[in-house]
């Protein structure tokens, strides 16, 4: 008999030989240990298997039921962005040595992965201006929550303050995490598009473990970290900064502005939008907090002949050692996506990353001005990176439906999380051409007035 399943190598003969060796007559006997009443009588009730070409067609059809950013220019951001990904990225991460490997527990045969992650950690340190970085986290939002938990545990204080200009999903996840670990989360109101520092001053106290802000924030605006640092210092609180790593190519490194922990999402550097995942969180901190950092860390060492090599290190921090005493349960990382962003950063290099970041500022600036010229109000009071808030005279949902008819994917509806009805968060990356921006501005004008 010929096999039906191309991933399963056992022929009838193989099976017979193995069963004979076990003195068994059928594989069924191997499952006798499962009590009869717990056995599935009729198998799993799921659709039948599809042969490869049939399945490929079905999946292509499913994929084609989505409108993708190759078809329509996209002005959505809000945490996930359409950026240039150099071709090399896909080729490197498609090597089976990288993508099929396990976590590098056996360093002698995992030096490639370990070194790539060591390089990734270095690049994250470079961008953030921090001493150390881990090998990555699930994504930016979960990384932010881990940072808050670390601050609470390290400061032995019972609450964190988080700016409302931090991504709503990150705050939602922080709420869930804080409920588990039983610490308080208080939100700090906005002064239009940035954190209200006067309110922050009133809310911060001796119980505050950390102040959490985003840089650039959810509205694209650039918070003044130096001012926030001063306020945190008066109460001995940490400053946690969530940062778009691409923006850090032109913005002062949070480490230089006194951040204790810098977290964020590597998606803008080498990771496709992919409906929001998988992405890759990063986590960087000071030497002082290194031994409390969650997640895996790669360190340099030598082998018995003195040759440079890399290992997973500082494992005493981790869940498999600490078990119920653990302060984080993270066991894996997003190694392949960390690799993708390391390759992307290597390809961009020190000049490319700056050029790309600058183009984001320029294109967003151009779009904002073009909209203002048409009479739209742009709400940002602070300088912004590649996103800004524009006020419309109609619900964003309606406007986006009209834009869609014009073949444009419009911006984010701020009515959704902020109660800012008729306010759209517009993202303009280096991918958008002047022609696309002009078309967007015109279509927006028609959509609002028409």
């Amino acid at each position: 008999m010929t096999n039906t399943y191309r991933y399963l190598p056992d022929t009838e003969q193989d099976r017979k030989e193995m069963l004979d060796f076990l003195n068994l007559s059928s594989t069924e006997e191997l499952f006798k240990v499962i009590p009869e009443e717990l056995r599935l009588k009729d198998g799993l009730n799921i659709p039948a298997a599809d042969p490869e070409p049939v399945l490929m067609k079905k999946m292509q059809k499913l994929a084609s039921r989505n409108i993708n950013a190759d078809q329509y220019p996209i002005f959505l951001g809000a945490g996930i962005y359409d950026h240039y990904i150099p071709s090399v990225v896909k080729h490197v991460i498609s090597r089976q040595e990288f993508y099929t490997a396990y976590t590098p527990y056996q360093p002698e045969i995992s030096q490639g992965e370990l070194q790539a992650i060591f390089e990734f950690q270095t690049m994250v340190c470079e961008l953030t201006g921090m001493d150390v970085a881990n090998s990555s986290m699930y994504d930016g939002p979960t990384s932010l929550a881990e940072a808050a938990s670390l601050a609470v545990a390290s400061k032995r204080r019972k609450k964190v303050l988080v700016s409302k200009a931090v991504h709503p999903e990150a705050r939602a996840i922080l709420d869930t995490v804080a409920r588990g670990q039983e610490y308080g989360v208080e939100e700090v109101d906005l002064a239009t598009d940035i954190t209200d520092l006067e309110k922050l001053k009133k809310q911060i106290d001796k119980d505050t473990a950390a102040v959490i802000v985003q840089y650039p924030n959810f509205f694209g605006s650039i918070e003044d970290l130096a001012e926030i640092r001063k306020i945190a210092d008066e109460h001995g609180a940490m400053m946690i900064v969530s940062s778009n790593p691409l923006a850090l190519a032109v913005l002062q490194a949070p480490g230089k502005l006194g951040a204790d922990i810098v977290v964020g999402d590597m998606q803008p550097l080498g990771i496709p939008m992919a409906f929001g995942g998988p992405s890759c969180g990063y986590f960087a901190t000071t030497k002082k907090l290194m031994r409390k950092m969650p997640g895996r860390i790669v360190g340099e060492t030598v082998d018995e002949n003195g040759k440079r090599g890399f290992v997973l290190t500082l494992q005493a921090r981790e869940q498999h050692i600490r078990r119920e005493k653990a302060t984080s349960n993270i066991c894996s990382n997003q190694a392949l996506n960390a690799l993708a962003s390391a390759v992307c950063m290597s390809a961009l290099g020190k000049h490319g990353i700056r050029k790309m970041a600058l183009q984001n500022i320029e294109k967003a600036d151009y779009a904002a001005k073009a909209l203002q010229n048409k009479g739209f109000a742009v709400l940002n009071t602070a300088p912004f990176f590649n996103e800004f808030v524009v006020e419309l005279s109609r619900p964003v949902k309606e406007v986006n439906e009209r834009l869609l008819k014009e073949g444009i994917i419009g911006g984010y509806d701020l009515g959704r999380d902020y109660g800012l009805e008729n306010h759209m968060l517009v993202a303009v990356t280096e991918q958008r051409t002047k022609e696309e921006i002009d078309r967007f501005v015109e279509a927006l004008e028609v959509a609002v007035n028409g």
Partner: protein
Amino acid sequence: MAEYNKLIFEIGRPGRVAYSLPESDVDSVDLEEKLPKHLIRDEEVNLPEVSELELMRHYVALSKKNFGVEDGFYPLGSCTMKYNPKINEDVASLPGFTRIHPYQPEETVQGALELIYNLQEELAVIGGMDAVTLQPAAGAQGEWTGLMIVKQYFEERGEDKRTKVLVPDSAHGTNPASAAVAGFDVVTVPSNDQGLVDLEELKKAVGDDTAAFMLTNPNTLGLFEKEIKEIAEVVHEAGGLLYYDGANANAILGKTTPGLMGFDIVHFNLHKTFSTPHGGGGPGAGPVGVKEFLIPYLPVPRVEKDGDKFVLNSDHPSSIGRVKGFYGNFLILVRAYTYIRTMGTEGLNEVSDAAVLHANYLRKKLEPYFESPYDNCMHEFVLSGSRQKKLGVRTVDMAKRLLDHGFHPPTVYFPLIVDECMMIEPTDTESKETLDAFAEAMIQIAKEVEENPEVVLEAPHNTIVGRLDEVQAARKPIVRYQKPENE
């Protein structure tokens, strides 16, 4: 060829690039005008400066220092290192999946939502559950999600004193860690001498403070907890919930379901049972399934069907909230769905047949040469290196010697309750010839331990680096590259 031993920061030259961006077609912006001076970056980002070919050579050289599933046998216990099918990768790189934004209008992402919905439905069937969330990014995050559901459930019922989560002493380290970060106290339940949950000890441990019992079945020793019905009764009678860690689900596909066994909550590891690649540590995915009475607590947003449209619904007031950005690791979900569609009912059933047959075959082959603490197994088994330890050779040494044979070693020193443990999971996708070759290597190593232990103690001999000094790495951590001062 000389061995490559450079960091990417140690190659290239100032001025080289490996990217191509169009020149800006809009006006330039003067940063000094736009931003206050102290918020403008004052130092270059020290990223590499390499050409595209240099970049590719660097990473290809690194890849050659890494061992993947296509390099050879990878019998890591409880990790299910099966083959990662190519069509999964092809499907996951379709622009219709990679180039979509999570906040696009629902009508423009119906294909993605349908895929998520279908996968939820099929995993519910496979788990014997009533609903599934695909949001958790990994097994550990699935565990924590499940336990937050437990917490919320009891809080809503006013049973606040249920503060304890029970785990067997054979449990994976994430179980107690996840319980701790969900705010529970952890109680360890000892195993009996057959490697199974000690029912009497469990009875003593449960009470009106029990929130949940977390169990892997088959457990981490590869043994099926045949008293699972009684275990479920004990836990449920005490008012607690039963949590299924799906790390070992490769053994039970189509044979039974966690639901049938009496579990209330399940997590699966798509990167184990459902063939998505491990990626050198991730991304994976850890969907969570629940029985009907726990559905209100699932994370939001949930993907639901409204007529013939698929929608995202966050209107579930009892939900534990969000656990992960957006909708989970979507491209991993795409791969797992492709796999399930490739295998279908019959295929998944054969997966477990093969996984369990292979483990039993290999166990019996090795049993004469190593201490074998238990006399049966499902899809994986444990051996103890205690016999070899008496001769001065430890499990770690034998693991390193396996590297010389071109095999990835098994999981070692876990579970903690087996001395010098080796935990071996051959998976469904390995051929009999591979199993035979691995057995031969293991047997040869066992002989070496008796006749020529130095060769094992000094292993590995053929790898690009020898054993690395982990003590120095931890004592004087170097976790990033620093440019030499004189440059």
